[in-house]
């Protein structure tokens, strides 16, 4: 037997759990204002999450998928992208979306069962949340193909969870991106769990980044709680993609510090101690420690930031709750550019019975 191919998977971490740099930091991280920008958005995500969960618990929001624990990954990816790139989210990557212009009000509107939440005023080319797991992946490859065909220096960025890596669509997209050297970066958010199924039951692969090897593209792991590492790794992958180098898979290792959604109860299935241990590695703390150590952050600033975030969130909640209720016509208006004549009758029926359903 002779060896015909060799592969390895690298892991990147720039800031450890204590907020200490483990290597020379990239240029953007030399600029304190850049890091503060990241930290502010991460904090907004964290506080928004708490608010959204509270709204749900008090009957003012539908089922909600929290992002607590993922802020470094989500914000890091957002910061690495350019506005003209296209994002293919799953359902909890608010940090990236907020960076790109989606509003808190839109997020709340969506989770309250209203299509108007998916009509992003900001990043018009970004895809909406994608519930059927992994189906966004081939779509991202398609967008990348469009950019390539048109010779545009734009990239697609697609998210997927650890659970999502078990779906065929995930591999199909990676394989296509490899075969055509498409400008797309796939971000696997390995948060340890797919609802109740731990990643070790999902796959025997020791890393999820190595799934890239099947597609003949590079795969790299990054500490997903290290926003500097995430941004650096994703920036490199995007630069490579933008210059015709093709796709990359980035596995961000993080942890879902919340329930899967507000409809879930993680205490039913998570082993004792795991959650507590994960809180020690959480992303905000380490960045704050680093900023404090650099003399860039103090208690007062923290308090100001929190007050500022809370005000933003409250304003968003007000805007959200004051949206007029959707009407039955909304089911029909956007179905087709040229609606079939037959639909008019149904639309009239719907109007007649609007509000009379249980």
């Amino acid at each position, binding site marked *: 037997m002779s060896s015909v191919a060799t592969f390895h998977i690298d892991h990147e971490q720039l800031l450890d759990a204590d907020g200490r740099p483990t290597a020379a930091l990239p240029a953007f991280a030399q600029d304190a204002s850049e890091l503060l920008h990241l930290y502010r958005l991460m904090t907004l995500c964290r506080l928004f999450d708490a608010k959204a969960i509270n709204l749900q618990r008090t009957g003012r929001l539908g089922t909600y998928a929290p992002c607590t624990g993922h802020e470094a990954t989500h914000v890091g990816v957002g910061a690495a992208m350019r506005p003209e790139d296209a994002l293919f989210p799953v359902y909890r990557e608010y940090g990236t979306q907020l960076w790109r212009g989606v509003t808190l009000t839109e997020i709340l509107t969506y989770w309250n069962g209203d299509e108007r939440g998916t009509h992003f005023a900001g990043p018009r080319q970004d895809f909406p949340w994608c519930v059927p797991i992994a189906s966004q992946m081939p779509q991202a490859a398609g967008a990348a193909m469009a950019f390539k065909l048109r010779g545009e220096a734009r990239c697609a960025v697609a998210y997927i969870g650890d659970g999502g890596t078990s779906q*065929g669509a995930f591999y199909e997209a990676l394989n296509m991106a490899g075969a055509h050297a498409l400008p797309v970066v796939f971000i696997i958010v390995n948060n340890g769990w*797919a609802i109740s199924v731990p990643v070790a039951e999902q796959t025997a692969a020791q890393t999820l980044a190595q799934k890239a090897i099947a597609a003949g593209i590079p795969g790299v792991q990054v500490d997903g709680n290290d926003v500097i590492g995430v941004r650096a790794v994703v920036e490199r992958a995007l630069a490579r993609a933008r210059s015709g180098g093709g796709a990359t898979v980035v596995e961000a290792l993080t942890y879902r510090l919340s329930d899967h959604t507000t409809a*879930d109860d993680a205490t039913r299935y998570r082993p004792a101690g795991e959650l507590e241990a994960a809180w020690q590695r959480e992303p905000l703390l380490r960045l704050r420690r680093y900023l404090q150590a650099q003399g860039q952050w103090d208690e007062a600033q923290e308090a100001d930031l929190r007050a500022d975030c809370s005000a933003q969130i409250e304003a968003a909640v007000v805007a959200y709750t004051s949206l007029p209720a959707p009407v039955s016509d909304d089911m*029909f208006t956007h179905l087709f550019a040229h609606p079939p004549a037959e639909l008019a009758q149904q639309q009239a029926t719907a109007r007649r019975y609007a509000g009379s*359903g*249980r």
Partner: protein
Amino acid sequence: MAKLTLVEAINQALNWSLTHDPDVVLLGEDIGVNGGVFRATAGLQQRHGKLRVQDTPLAEGLIAGMSIGMAAQGLKPVAEIQFMGFIYPALDQICNHMARMRNRTRGRITLPIVMRMPHGGGIHAPEHHSESLEALLCHHAGLRVLCPSSPAQAYGLLLAAIRDPDPVMFLEPTRLYRLARQEVPDDGVALPLDQCHLLRAGDDVTVVSWGAITHEVLLAAEQLAAEQIQCEVLDLASLSPIDHNSILDSVARTGRLVIVHEAARNCGLGAEIAATVAERGLYSLHAPICRITGYDTVMPYFRLEHDYIPGVARIADGIRSTVRA
């Protein structure tokens, strides 16, 4: 005897099957420790072990395909698809293989599989969690499709499905999972397949429906009784094959037919029922057939779901006009 909800009755039927038939194996996403997102399999892994109640990787096509391989080797897989809106990745396995293997191999390979899945809306769930896609499955020969409307039916039909030597799609109405309780003896007695159920007798109009919306239909029938309109309410229960003869018999007496379903109208199951009556029972009809259905739109996000799902008022009006036509 404790009264059970529909989801508890399902749990009881699964437990009975696991206990009495060593070939029964459960598989699906989050059905193990977590007991299923609706708790249909709660406690079963603890009781029957990790091998017989298996969490799978997140892949519906895999779940259906594995079920085929397992069943062909003599097991009786009972697979869960977490929501019916996630059935699509499994359709290649279900339609191209499960439905065909007995026929393809002239009976050499047979597939006693049950695919369970929550069906329908009305529970304020996110997008894709409220779909009614029975027509897709019913269009494929080689499958049976069931949809219970009460805890006792759920228990008896699920047992029948598990015992049937052919693949059965078992649609569980989410709106009913916890709506009502009923005494359901854990006696292992299955209900017959291929039959519809009479929920209410009446002479003025035959109303056919299935699953969750039978409850709105019964409420409408109740209302109409006060107006001297007596509805005969048939619960299909077996969506494929359809018990056409029972429907035709009823229409022969009432002369009027209303079909109520939650799924989209175009090419929904209601069309098949109407078409069959227009073929085999046309001369009984005293009035146009009436379908009261979901619209030919996408199932909306939940704020509008009760404008999509036929409500009691819409159903009652449809029956009223049919009776008065």
